[in-house]
């Protein structure tokens, strides 16, 4: 598939220190079974890494760029020729966006408002490419769509996993 080769970021995974997946976003098309296998493999690789090592790992023909924020690992898969530092900053900017939207974000925010986390991600990255880099306008777009959404409470009370 051509799209597969063209996307800058192939997928993004968020998982906790215990290895629980919190959020996944794929910019390539893969069967579910394959995805599960990849997730298991990657979580294991990253959790077993030493704190002192670099934030990059070779994985198959891709490169994993990851960073830990409190108890959450954010991990992106990119291609070899892509800029690793830039990807780290993409992750960082996403965390900033979450922080701005939720106000001092924590893992629980993402667990209970996972759909918001996805919205923010969609606003920020489209099809594997960074789109909106302005914090203010990204959060504003989400808040706008919140206004449209009538029954927020209903979602709030539903446990995610």
């Amino acid at each position, binding site marked *: 598939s051509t799209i597969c080769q063209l996307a800058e970021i192939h997928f993004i995974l968020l998982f906790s220190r215990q290895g629980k997946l919190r959020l996944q976003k794929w910019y390539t098309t893969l069967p579910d079974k394959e995805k599960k296998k990849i997730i298991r493999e990657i979580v294991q690789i990253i959790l077993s890494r030493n704190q*002192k*090592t670099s*934030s990059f790992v070779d994985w198959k023909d891709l490169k994993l760029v990851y960073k830990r924020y409190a108890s959450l690992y954010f991990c992106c898969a990119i291609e070899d020729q892509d*800029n*690793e*530092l830039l990807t780290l900053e993409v992750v960082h900017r996403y965390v900033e966006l979450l922080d701005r939207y939720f106000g001092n974000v924590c893992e629980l925010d993402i667990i209970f408002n996972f759909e918001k986390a996805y919205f923010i991600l969609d606003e920020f990255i489209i*099809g594997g*490419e960074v789109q909106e880099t302005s914090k203010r*306008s990204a959060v504003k777009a989400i808040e706008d769509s919140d206004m449209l959404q009538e029954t927020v409470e209903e979602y709030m009370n539903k446990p995610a996993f």
Partner: protein
Amino acid sequence: MALTIVSQIFPREMIPAVLPLIEDKLQHSKEIIRRKAVQALYKFYLIAPNQVQHIHDKFRKALCDRDAGVMAASLHIYLQMIKESSSGYKDLTGSFVAILKQVVGGKLPIDFNYHSVPAPWLQIQLLRILRLLGKDDPRTSELMYEVLDESLRRAEINHNITYAILSECVQTIYTIYPNSELLEKAAKCIGKFVLSPKINLKYLGLKALTYVIHQDPNLALQHQMTIIECLDHPDPIVKRETLELLYRITNGQNVIVIVQKMLDYLKESKEEYAIINLVGKIAELAEKYAPNNEWFIQTMNAVFSVGGDLVHTDIPNNFLRLLAEGFDDGKEDDKLRVYAVKSYLALLEEDDALYPQKFLQVMSWVLGEYSSLVTDVDPEVILTKLHSLLRKTFVTSETKVWIMATVTKIASRTSCSKAVDEIIQEFSNSLDTCMRQYAFELKNLCKDKELMKNLLPFDASCSDMVVDASLSFLDGFVAEGLGRGAAPYKPHHQRQEEKLSQEKALNFEPYRLSFASSVSSSGITGRQSPTGLSVGSDTSVNSAETGHKETSTLKLEGVRKLWGKEGYLPKKESKEGKEKEPQTASCSTLSTGQVGDPPALRFDQVASISEEDKEKQQLASTLFIGLGSNAGVSLMGKAETATQKFKRRSKINEIQHSEEVSDFRNSAAADFGPLLDTRPINMEDSEGSLHTRLRKASLSSSDIVEDNLAFEMPQSLRKSGLEERLSENRLSQSSLFADSNIEIFQPSPSAQCESASKTPLIPSLPEELEELTHSEIVQLCQSDALALYLCKVWTDDSLLLTVFVSNKTTAVLNAVNLVFEEAEHFQILESPSYQFPAIEAESVERCQKYVWMDKICTQGVLSGSVNYQLEMETRLDFSVTLSLMDFIRPMQMTTEDFGKLWLSLSNDVKQNIKMSSSQDTLSAALNTLQQKLKLHIVDVIGNEGILACQLLPSVPCLLHCRTHSRMLALWFRSPCSALPDSLLYQCQKVMEES
């Protein structure tokens, strides 16, 4: 929100439906909507570039949008388009530079800042675009120097994002046409990265070093100590990158140390992907720079045993080819072979060692071919060893077959052997049919030693075998078979087609006379049902050929029986001999089984724990040897040729080998049909060079043509009618032949005067073809002796390529061979080659080839070459551009048939296109389509029209057109899914042009 979804999950079939809606959104007043619309178009572009081709100017508008976000989104599209072809966008360089200047200068709204760095993502995107634009282009690069300098200067803050920009900047500087001042600054930057204590930055620095190393080996010298430290870094990615760097600076002097480092890493590494990658690199280095035979063999042994069965099949194949072809010095070759045999015997000495299958296959081949070079080892010993291997359970049946072949080869050189007898005994009733067959073959061969020696000549693995591929000696058998009423053989493509046409409900081909003749020739078998009639047309085209091919499948069975009992057909034998070579080179199974490193391969470890620093210094000096003294790029890595020990002998050999790598099991299947179709497949390696060569040729000669043209014009007035037509042709050069604009090139002015005597040199179509629609005759290529001309004749059932070869010399040219290469998209009926027995002096010969399009593409290239013997063997390459329209023919049918067929077809594509003022009526539009695209107008009812055409040989495509408010709605249907898309593109093109 909808736009967000559009760009995430959108199927290609729905694009035409929403495209106009999204185009509207480009004018929306809210910038967020505009931005997402651009993004959605970008996705469409990735999915189906053809369908958004007509809105390129809208992308340009988006680039100039007043909102920087929209502009940034459009950069994605540009980056992609420039990646595909940078030449079309050079004019935008100025704009990109201006944008980057503004961004770097902080002219953007504060919103776009990220940690007080202005729009870093935008900057990086722009840097990437500039990199692509400035590559190898001094003029475009010059525009960028200033702004690049500026970005380097501005990115001073100590933050990750600035490092990201810096590294991108450095990469751009090294990619574009070099500027010494910038290079110096970039080098300093890399230094900063490499020396950084932060591991992420260090890694990035190494990565940067890796790609600049070609241009600036001195940089690696400056950082050699850091590189050495990184070699023992605990983080595998740093280590791997370091090895990558070393791989690029390898030369004849440091190869031993570097390969050792790589092998060490290989042993620790567990990941499959990394192993495959690294093993390939080691094998490449070993082949290129091996200092001596022993080292080479040992390194390759290590590669095979550590890499196991993960290694790419190329590696054992290349290795065996090197051994077989040898190098310039025969004595050296033998030494190498003897060493290889000895080392394998030593390895097999250990009874319980487990080797990967591929390694065993390599060993058995080498032993079979060259064990007789080693005089002090009794063949009986080798045979016994092989015998014990055959009994092992971990050896797969494929490997056993390799070993069996080895046994056969060795047996042919010994008088009588107990081990051979035992093997025959044991495997004559093996459950594995392959093994059993081999055992029987061996048994029968042993009865006739003389024949066996002829069959398995020593060291003949790379000499050519003469194989009668047409199996002409079987013609009698076939004739007899046909006489008894057997059906003639049909080639694969024909059978498929027959199947297809039987599945289809309707057949649009008219009955043909030729069918009757082919029926009579095949006897009254009645195998063809009336629905299969359309096949008749091409049966007639190659009926001679078909009979021929028939032979191949039928007869081999017969031969095989002969083979076991009473002696052999000598020709068949040579074929069998050839079959044995392929299997030695064939490797297909992947199985597990890792082996410990054999003790013989151990090198002394270079680094020890004590006196670490001193050791490192020493290591550095060995690693960077050859770099310091001679910093010239020519000594670096791949550019080095002087020390390249293991050179390939010749291209031709290579081709033959790749051909030989065919699954050996085919031989048992007795299906030699495909063999007829095999021909040298050297597309991959020659195509690129061929193109450049062609381009050069046409460049250099086009000047001459222009000169000639200017000088010829007045003359043509008093020329004969023929000459006049020719010069007319020259003026109206058809766009179809964009890459060969040279028409007829007359050798000298003096020759023109005597036009009467020279006419034979100007090719012309024979009368029967002259009546058909055809293109102008264009020159393909020429040399001192030959000129090649081409004319496309669009016959009803195929594209007929007529190639004229004109002999410009005053001598007869013998054995001129014309060969078309196999092309992905096209299929040449009959054989792809043609041999002119002789071409008289100063005369023209002609050959014709029927071509079909196999896989749909809008345009493709069919390349080929002409070989001829004149003092020396000369080869002339050419290529022909064929477009989809060469294979589209009108399709006659009634409105009723159209209706039926329409309902039975499933693949459809719809699109609205704007009609220009010149063709605002339906009939005008239909006429355009009829004339330009050869579509057949079936019917016109009110504001609707239906058209039909077919892709040769018989894939129909139906088109339904409707006009409404200056829009033309096109609706295609066809059994083939790719055809409507391509035709739609052609329609858009012709409608825009008219």
